[in-house]
């Protein structure tokens, strides 16, 4: 009984963290959902205009960016798998690769957008003023939706950058034994915050565990959960793009 009795107060709740993350992802989907709704209406009203407007998008860059994002999702998933197996270094490398892909995506986006601006294809431009209203609405949507998506890529990169710092650092833990019977083994991180604790039957057993636990799965778990949640966010960015790509580039 005693070893199984966990201290609820500070115990890491991975399931809770994931529920929270998924709820947040729902809100993100609904945020883009509003835009997809707007797209659906204008696609219906201005079917022909959308068709012609879409033909001037650069399919090659779009397809290439799709490939980049999909691959980055793969390296993200591999990074999580690596950390789960305790391969901290590999996990970091894969995370860096993911960030690299994300930056690559943004660079392509920059060239793609500048080309559009160069050709005068942006809201309020003289070129678009001379075309049909539907084409204007198409470019309004194009910039709003890919722009919001690009913003999410940037946020995702910031999150992944922060995660790199978290994953790269081996948790420096202080182990402390409190009480006699039942004894309690407490692990604290560098800032003195209790990240894990457990009741054990005997103090000697707790001391023994104190030597072993810093590399134990349960101690690594908070890091893995954080990386998984960041990964979920990155996949969201990917999934949104999977819908944006055909809607803007392929249907023409």
């Amino acid at each position, binding site marked *: 009984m005693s070893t199984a009795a966990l201290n*609820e107060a500070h115990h890491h709740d991975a399931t*809770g963290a994931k529920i*929270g993350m998924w709820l*947040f992802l729902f809100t993100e989907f609904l945020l883009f959902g*509003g835009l997809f709704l707007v797209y659906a*209406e*204008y696609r219906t009203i201005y079917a022909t205009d959308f068709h012609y407007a879409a033909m001037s998008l650069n399919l090659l860059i779009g397809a290439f960016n799709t490939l980049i994002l999909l691959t980055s999702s793969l390296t993200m998933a591999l990074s999580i798998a690596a950390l789960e197996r305790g391969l901290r270094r590999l996990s970091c490398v894969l995370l860096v690769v993911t960030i690299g892909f994300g930056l690559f995506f943004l660079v392509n986006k920059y060239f793609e957008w500048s080309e559009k601006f160069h050709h005068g294809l942006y809201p*309020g431009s003289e070129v678009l003023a001379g075309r049909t209203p539907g084409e204007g609405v198409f470019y*309004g949507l194009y910039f709003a939706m890919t722009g919001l998506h690009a913003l999410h890529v940037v946020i995702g990169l910031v999150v992944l950058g922060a995660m790199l710092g978290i994953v790269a650092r081996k948790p420096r833990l202080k182990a402390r034994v409190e009480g006699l019977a039942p004894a309690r083994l407490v692990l604290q991180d560098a800032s003195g915050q209790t990240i894990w604790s457990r009741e054990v039957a005997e103090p000697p057993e707790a001391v023994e565990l104190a030597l072993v636990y810093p590399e134990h799965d349960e101690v690594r778990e908070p890091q893995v959960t954080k990386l998984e949640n960041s990964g979920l966010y990155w996949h969201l960015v990917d999934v949104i793009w999977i819908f944006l790509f055909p809607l803007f580039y392929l249907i023409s």
Partner: protein
Amino acid sequence: MSSSETPSRAHPSYLEDSGRHKGILGWLLSVDHKRIGILYLVSIACFFFIGVTIGILMRLEMLTAGPTIVQPQTYNALFTLHGVIMIFLFIIPGIPAILGNFFLPIQIGARDVAFPRLNLLSWYCYIAGAVIAVASLFTGGGPPDTGWTFYVPFSIRTGTNVTLAVFGAFILGFSSILTGLNFITTIHRLRAPGMDWFKMPLFTWSLYATAWVQILATPVLAITLVLVMLERLFGLGLFDPAKGGDPILYQHLFWIYSHPAVYIMILPAMGVISEIFPAFARQKIYGYKAIAFSSLAIAFVGYLVWGHHMFTSGMSDTSRLVFSLLTFFVAIPSGVKVFNWVSTLYKGAIVVPPPMLYALSFIFLFAIGGLTGIIQSALATNIHVHDTYWIVGHFHYVMFGGAAWGFFAGLLYWFPKMTGRMYNFRPVFVAWVLMFVGFNMLYFTMLVLGWMGMPRRYYDFLPPFHTGHVIATVGSWFLVSGLVILAATLIRGLRRGAPAPADPWGGTTLEWRIASPPPTENFHEIPTVTHGPYDRPEISV
């Protein structure tokens, strides 16, 4: 698990224990759900009184025809600000962020919410959004004059500072979403042993339903407001008819959020009432499951009725019929609740201290709000009353008479627990009389004026409406004096009130099992729940 009852000095109350930081930082950096609840209480109360002040200025302006105290453009700004402040800064966060933050964890037997730091972040989002909204008054082209709905195309054409105000509302949305996310996770993960879903207090149930609406509706508003900003900054043309955009689409997107938002406002108030009735009728609540499920039903049906704000905007007859029918459906779960509350009173040993008095009058006022709502969900009547004072009267009966009275009832009910002190009952009764009389003078007259044809948001009026406007304005004075007395009594109680016992009312839920004010982590030992939230073992023997 063998721990004896420890002396209370070992567990200081949350008011004394400021945690790692001292003084004001002990509040501003606290991640304790109770302290965050108090932070919200103070900030929301400030904005509420700003909103009230603007409201009374508007009524004063309408006392006489023509200019009374302000110019027309100022009046446009006043009704916009009154709406924005009352809706985004008071009613939407009101009950969930103050009372919910404070009592949700305690009611389910938890030590805190699932994400305490995120909880504090929500409060900072609230403050940031509020500061930005207030800043929009003094910067750019002056305070926004669009009404709180920010309807296009006016909101993209007006020279006033709509962009910043809309950005403030966008940030406030984050606060609302994060609170909702936190509450759902808390309820799923942190219920005490034995606290199964149907042993949860009904206030918690209502917060659960509300939290889902917060999460699923707010993002749609967020993106809509972002589009308005982009429209103003870059002229995207998505809502601008001159550029091929569709303004009606804006209205759809806006109400897809803003109608469910009405249930963000009212559901928690209904939850408060469901706590107060069994406590003061000394009875188990009648129809526990019906009340719990009706909260979910209202949250669900609430998503499907946004079109009823747009019956005159241009929609097909089919959509109007469907939206009208679905709107009637909202009355069913609402009626279920009202009948269950009233049935709870049957054969009860009813006592009527202040919280119960406000709860009882909630039923009266909410019933008027609800029934007038049914009247305007009928298509033909709706066209008659659309954009008149009738609508203003109706939603004040629901929002103020419903949500805000529920909030007052809840505040009076939980004040002793939150502060550890009682307040003086007699001035609260005086305040109630003033508020109740003033409220009905103000808003019932509005219903009548609207039915006669007085349009809302007009700066001026024709002679036949004069008497009505005078009655309403005088009513607003009664209402505000009542509010001031109520606030003063509570503030006095806070400083000089008698110490409150752990359970001053005879409540049955978990918060009445711990000290007033509660200790830092609520429970020395997480309780094991063995009976329902409203069971009274001492009298059922």
